[in-house]
C-alpha cells in the first residue's frame, strides 16, 4: 500500500485501465456487430439497430450495464453552418472591433510609459495587420454566424459531409473567387480567370521551366529553346538542339565532389554509384529524378531558411508556425498529393510542389534550432562590432549556425528522394514513375533494379551533403589562382575530356548508339532475368514455409488483434487515451488528445482509423521490441554501436517506398507485406535512439556504478536504462510516426484503412476534401501519440536534470 501511496500515477493508471475494461464489457449486444469493419454503420442502414437513443433510455441502458449506441460509435452529427456576411452592419462591427483593439493597446501603452500617438504608431504599426485579421474574422464571420444561430434560421450540415464542403470551398477558391481579366493569347481576347487559378498556374509554369532546364542540361532536349523562341522557329533551325552532358562528365564530377568534400572513400562511392546507374541503363530516369530533386531541394531550402529566420526574429511567427509544423510532419506523404493535384494539376511541377511542401518543415525546424543555438555572446559580439540587422543575420548568425542549417539541407534532399516515388502518383517522371509501372505489371525484378538506383542516388546525395555540412571552410589567403580555383578548373577539364570522349564515341560505335554519351535503357546491362530467376527459385523452395508463416500470422495474430481493436466502443477509446493524457500531462494534455480523437470520431472513418491504428501499433510493438533489444546489445560495445548506427543511417536514407519491394516478393499482396515493411522501416529509429540514449549515459555514472560493484545486467537495468529511457521514448515516438507513414504507403498494395481511401481520393476529381481530411485524420493519430510521449519525455528529462 505504501508503494501505491508513493506512486499516485500508478493508481490513476489502474483506474483508467479498469474503466477501459468495464466500458468494453458494457458493449454487450453491440460487440458482435462492431467487430467487423463498418458493421455498425451497415446495421444502422439495414435498420437492425438505432444509432441514437434518447436520454432516459440511455440512462436505463447504462443501469442495465449496456452502453447506449451513441457511446459505441459516434453517429452522424449535424452542426450549425457558419455564415459569412459583408453587409454594412457587419462592416461597422468589424471597424468597431478594430477600434476597440487599437484603443486597448494604445491605452495600455500610455499607462506604462508616456509616448505620443505618433511614436506609438511608429512602434506598433505592425500590430495593425494582426488587428485587421482579428476584426475581419470577428466582424464578418463570428458576428453574423452567432446572429443567425440565435435569431435567424440557421442551416445545418452533417460532419460526414465535411469532405464535400471542403471540396466545394476549394473549387470555389480555385475557379470562381476574385476573377481578374487575363489576356489569353490563344483566342486573342481578355478573359475572366480566378486569381488563385492564375497564381497556381504561374507557379506551375515557373517550376516546370526550371525542371525542364535542369533536365535538359543533364539529358539534352529542345524545350528550353522553345520557351525562348517557338516550335516554328525550331523546325526551321534543325541545329538548335541542346546536347546532353555525357554521362562520363556527371560520373567524374560526382567522383571529384566526393574527393573534394571528404576523400577517397566518398569519391569511390559516388563514382561507382553513378557508374552503376549508367551501365545498367537507368541513366535517363535517374537524371529525370535528379533534375526533379535539384529543383525541389533548393526551393525547399530557401523557403525553409526564410520561415526559419522569420520565426527566429518574431516570437508570434514561431508560435503560429509550431502547430503547423507539427501537423505537417505527421501528415502522411500521400495526403499532400490530392490538394496539390487540384491546385497545380498533374505532372512534374505538381510532384515538385508536393515534394517542396513535404520537405520544407524539417528545414524550418533545423534553421530555427541552429539560429537559437548560436551563443548569445556571439550575437552580442556582432552587435558591438556595429552590425545592422542585415549584417547580423547574414554575416554572424547564419554562418555561425551553418552546420545545423546544412544538416537541414541534407534532410531536405532526403525528403525529396523519399517523395520521388510517391510524387510519381501525380505525374512526376523518373525512377519513381518507372518503378510504379514495374510494380503494377508485377515485374518485381525490374522494380528491384529501379529501387536500387533510387537508393544509390539517395545514399550518394546524402553522403555528399553531409560531407559538405561537416566540411570546415578552407582559407584562401595567399594561394595562387590555380590553387584557389582548382576544383572549378578540374571540372572544366572533366567537361572537355567528356565531350571529347563522346565525340570520339560517335566514330567508335556504329548503329546510332554512342555508349560514351548516353547508354539507353535497352542497351544497358541488366540483372533483371537473374533477379527474377533468383526470386522464382527462392519462392519455389520456400513457398510453403512462407505461406505457412503468412497464414499463421494473419489468422492467429492479425485478425484477432484487428477484431479486438474494432470491438472497442468509442467511449472506451476516448476514456483510455484521455486518461493516459491526464496522467502524463494533466488536464491540458487530456484535452489536446481529446480534440485530436474527436476530429477523427466526428468524420465517418472511425473504423478505418481503428484499422490504421491496429496496423501501426502492431508494427510499433514489434519494432520497439526488436529495436530496444538490438540497440541495447550493440550499445555494450563501441564498435558494434558504430556499426549499428551506420546501418541505421544508411537504411534511413532509403526512400520508404523501396522497402515494400523485397517484402512484396516474399509475401505477395497481403497485410503481412505491409506490416513487415512497417517493422523494417520503423525499427530504424527505435534502434538508433536506444543506442544513442545508452551511449549518452555519462561515463562518470558508469564508473560510479562499476565502483559500487554492479554486474553488467545490473548496470544495464539500474543505471543505463532508466537514464536513457526518456531518449528511447523519443525514439518510440519516431517509430510511431514512421510506422504510420509506412502503413499509409502500404495502401498501395492493398489495405483497407485510411490510406486506401487516400489512394482512392487521388483518382477522384472531387477528392480534395477526402484527401485533406483523411490526411488530417492520420496526422491526428500521430499527434496524439506524439503529444503524450513528448510531454512525458520532457518531464522525465527535467526530473533527471538532463535537459
Amino acid at each position, binding site marked *: 500500500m505504501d508503494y501505491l501511496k508513493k506512486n499516485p500515477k500508478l493508481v490513476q493508471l489502474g483506474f483508467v485501465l479498469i474503466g477501459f475494461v468495464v466500458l468494453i464489457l458494457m458493449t454487450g449486444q453491440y460487440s458482435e456487430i462492431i467487430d467487423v469493419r463498418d458493421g455498425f454503420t451497415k446495421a444502422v442502414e439495414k435498420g437492425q439497430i438505432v444509432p441514437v437513443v434518447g436520454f432516459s433510455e440511455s440512462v436505463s441502458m447504462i443501469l442495465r450495464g449496456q452502453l447506449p449506441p451513441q457511446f459505441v460509435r459516434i453517429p452522424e452529427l449535424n452542426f450549425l453552418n457558419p455564415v459569412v456576411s459583408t453587409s454594412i452592419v457587419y462592416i461597422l462591427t468589424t471597424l468597431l472591433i478594430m477600434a476597440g483593439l487599437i484603443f486597448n493597446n494604445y491605452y495600455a501603452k500610455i499607462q506604462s510609459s508616456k509616448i505620443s500617438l505618433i511614436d506609438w504608431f511608429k512602434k506598433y504599426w505592425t500590430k495593425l495587420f494582426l488587428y485587421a485579421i482579428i476584426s475581419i474574422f470577428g466582424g464578418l464571420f463570428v458576428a453574423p454566424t452567432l446572429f443567425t444561430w440565435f435569431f435567424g434560421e440557421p442551416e445545418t450540415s452533417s460532419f460526414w459531409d465535411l469532405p464535400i464542403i471542403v471540396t466545394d470551398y476549394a473549387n470555389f477558391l480555385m475557379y470562381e473567387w476574385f476573377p481578374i481579366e487575363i489576356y489569353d493569347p490563344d483566342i486573342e481576347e481578355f478573359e475572366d480567370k480566378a486569381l488563385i487559378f492564375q497564381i497556381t498556374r504561374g507557379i506551375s509554369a515557373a517550376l516546370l521551366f526550371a525542371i525542364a532546364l535542369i533536365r535538359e542540361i543533364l539529358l539534352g532536349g529542345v524545350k528550353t529553346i522553345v520557351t525562348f523562341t517557338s516550335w516554328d522557329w525550331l523546325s526551321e533551325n534543325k541545329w538548335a538542339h541542346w546536347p546532353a552532358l555525357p554521362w562520363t562528365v556527371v560520373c567524374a564530377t560526382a567522383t571529384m565532389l566526393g574527393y573534394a568534400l571528404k576523400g577517397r572513400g566518398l569519391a569511390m562511392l559516388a563514382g561507382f554509384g553513378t557508374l552503376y546507374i549508367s551501365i545498367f541503363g537507368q541513366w535517363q530516369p535517374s537524371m529525370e529524378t535528379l533534375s526533379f530533386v535539384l529543383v525541389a531541394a533548393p526551393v525547399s531550402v530557401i523557403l525553409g531558411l526564410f520561415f526559419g529566420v522569420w520565426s527566429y526574429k518574431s516570437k508570434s511567427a514561431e508560435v503560429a508556425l509550431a502547430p503547423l509544423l507539427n501537423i505537417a510532419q505527421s501528415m502522411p506523404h500521400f495526403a499532400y498529393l490530392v490538394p496539390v493535384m487540384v491546385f497545380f494539376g498533374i505532372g512534374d511541377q505538381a510532384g515538385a510542389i508536393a515534394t517542396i511542401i513535404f520537405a520544407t518543415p524539417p528545414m524550418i525546424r533545423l534553421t530555427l534550432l541552429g539560429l537559437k543555438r548560436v551563443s548569445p555572446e556571439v550575437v552580442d*559580439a556582432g552587435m558591438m562590432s556595429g552590425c545592422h540587422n542585415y549584417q547580423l543575420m547574414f554575416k554572424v548568425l547564419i554562418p555561425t549556425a551553418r552546420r545545423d542549417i546544412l544538416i537541414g539541407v541534407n534532410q531536405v534532399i532526403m525528403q525529396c528522394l523519399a517523395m520521388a516515388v510517391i510524387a510519381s502518383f501525380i505525374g512526376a517522371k523518373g525512377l519513381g514513375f518507372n518503378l510504379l509501372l514495374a510494380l503494377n505489371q508485377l515485374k518485381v525484378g525490374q522494380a528491384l533494379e529501379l529501387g536500387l538506383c533510387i537508393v544509390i542516388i539517395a545514399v550518394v546525395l546524402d553522403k555528399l551533403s553531409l560531407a559538405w555540412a561537416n566540411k570546415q571552410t578552407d582559407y584562401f589567403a595567399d594561394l595562387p589562382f590555380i590553387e584557389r580555383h582548382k576544383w572549378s578548373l578540374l571540372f572544366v577539364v572533366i567537361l572537355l575530356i567528356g565531350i571529347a570522349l563522346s565525340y570520339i564515341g560517335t566514330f567508335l560505335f556504329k548503329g546510332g548508339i554512342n555508349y560514351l554519351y548516353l547508354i539507353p535503357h535497352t542497351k544497358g546491362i541488366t540483372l533483371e532475368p537473374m533477379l527474377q530467376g533468383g526470386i522464382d527459385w527462392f519462392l519455389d523452395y520456400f513457398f510453403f514455409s512462407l505461406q505457412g508463416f503468412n497464414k499463421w500470422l494473419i489468422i492467429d495474430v492479425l485478425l484477432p488483434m484487428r477484431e479486438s481493436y474494432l470491438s472497442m466502443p468509442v467511449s472506451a477509446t476516448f476514456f483510455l487515451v484521455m486518461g493516459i493524457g491526464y496522467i502524463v500531462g494533466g488536464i491540458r494534455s487530456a484535452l489536446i488528445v481529446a480534440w485530436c480523437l474527436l476530429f477523427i470520431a466526428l468524420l465517418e472513418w472511425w473504423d478505418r482509423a481503428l484499422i490504421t491504428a491496429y496496423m501501426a501499433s502492431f508494427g510499433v510493438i514489434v519494432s520497439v521490441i526488436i529495436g530496444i533489444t538490438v540497440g541495447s546489445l550493440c550499445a555494450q560495445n563501441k564498435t558494434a554501436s558504430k556499426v549499428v548506427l551506420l546501418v541505421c543511417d544508411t537504411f534511413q536514407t532509403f526512400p520508404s517506398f523501396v522497402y515494400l519491394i523485397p517484402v512484396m516478393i516474399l509475401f505477395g499482396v497481403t497485410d503481412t507485406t505491409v506490416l513487415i515493411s512497417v517493422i523494417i522501416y520503423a525499427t530504424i529509429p527505435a534502434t538508433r535512439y536506444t543506442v544513442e540514449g545508452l551511449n549518452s549515459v555519462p561515463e562518470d555514472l558508469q564508473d560510479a556504478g562499476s565502483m559500487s560493484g554492479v554486474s553488467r545486467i545490473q548496470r544495464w537495468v539500474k543505471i543505463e536504462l532508466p537514464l536513457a529511457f526518456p531518449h528511447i521514448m523519443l525514439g518510440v515516438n519516431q517509430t510511431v510516426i514512421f510506422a504510420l507513414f509506412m502503413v499509409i504507403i502500404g495502401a498501395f498494395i492493398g489495405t483497407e484503412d485510411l490510406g486506401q481511401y487516400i489512394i482512392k481520393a487521388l483518382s477522384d476529381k472531387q477528392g480534395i476534401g477526402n484527401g485533406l481530411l483523411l490526411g488530417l485524420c492520420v496526422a491526428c493519430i500521430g499527434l496524439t501519440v506524439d503529444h503524450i510521449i513528448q510531454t512525458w519525455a520532457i518531464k522525465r528529462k527535467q526530473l533527471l536534470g538532463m535537459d
Partner: protein
Amino acid sequence: MSSQDTPSQKEQPVVKCESVYKIFGENAKKMLQSSNGKVDAKEFQDAGCVVGVNNASFEVYHGEMLVIMGLSGSGKSTLLRCISRLTDTTAGQIFIDGEDLLALSGKELIELRRNKMGMVFQSFALLPHKTVVENIAFPLQVKGNSTKDSMTRAMEMVELVGLAGRENYFPRELSGGQQQRVGIARSLAVEPDIWFLDEPFSALDPLIRKEMQDEFLRLQGVLKKTILFVTHDFDEALRLADRIAIMKDGIIEQLDTPANIVLNPATEYVRKFTQEVPREKVLKIEAVMDPLDSSEELSDLKVSKDAIIETVVEAVLNEKKPVAVVDANNKTVGALHNSKVIHVLFGDNKEETNA
C-alpha cells in the same frame, strides 16, 4: 594603474551613469514608478521581477580603468550590458562623452559602436567560420572599410596581441588564451575610446590568466583606454583596477580605489572579500606612509611611494629610523614608520580574529 589621483572634477567623464536601474520582468516599469526609486529586491521578486541593477550612479574618466566586481548574479554583467546598450535600461540615464546614450536612435547607436566602443567576451565569441585575421577585421568590414585597409589594420592588431604567424588559423585551432587574444584584438581594431571587458579571463586556466593579465596591463600601458572591466575575481580586480565597484544584488556596495577598499571596507559584505587579501601584496607605500614631519630624522633608505609594500618591506623593517618616501621626481613626500607598517599589515586581522 598609471595614476591613483582622483581625476579633476572639471574634466568631462567619458561614461556617466545616473541612477541606472535594470529590472527584468513584465511590468518592471510600472513597479519601479510606484516604488519611487527605492527598490527592494525581495518585494520585486515576489511580483515576478528580477532586479539586475539597482540605482547605479558613477562616473568613469578618460584613461581610467574601473573594475566592476561581484559574484555571479550580482548584476555586474547586466550593468555593463546597460552601458553598452546591449540590454535596454529600465530607468536612469547614461551619458557617453556627454551624449545621452539612451536617446540615440538605432542608426546612431550603430555608429557609436562602430567608432567608440569595443567589447571582449567571457567565452571569446569568435566567429567560427572566419580566420583569426578575418575575425579581427570583421568590425572594420562591417563598417564598410575596404578589404585591403581592414586587413592591414587587422594584421597590425595580430602583431600587437602577439599572434603573428597564426593569422590564418581558425578559432577552433587555437588555445583559450590565444582565442581571447583574438577577442581583444577584434575589440581594439576600430580604435575604440571605451573598452568593455566582460570577465575576459574567467574561462582561462590560472596560469594563462596571470599571463593574460600581464599582457593586458602591458597593452593598457601603451593604449591608455577608458576601461570598464567586469570580473568575479577580487584578486584580479585589485591587480588591475584604478577604482573598483563592488556589487551585490544589483547595488554598488562600495566604489573606491583598491587601497581604500582594502583598508576601509564600507560594508560587512566588502569586508568579507578584503579579509583574506594579503595586504602587503596589494597596498602601495603611499597607503601606509605618514605625512612628512620635519622634526623627525629619516634613515638613508629611500622608497618610492608607488612601490608595493611587499617588495620593500624587508628593508624597511630592518631600518631603526623612519624611512623616507619619495615620489617619481625623487622628492621626499612622507615618512614610513615601522609600527604603522606592522599595524596596517597585521593589526586589523588580529582584532577580527579575536572578535
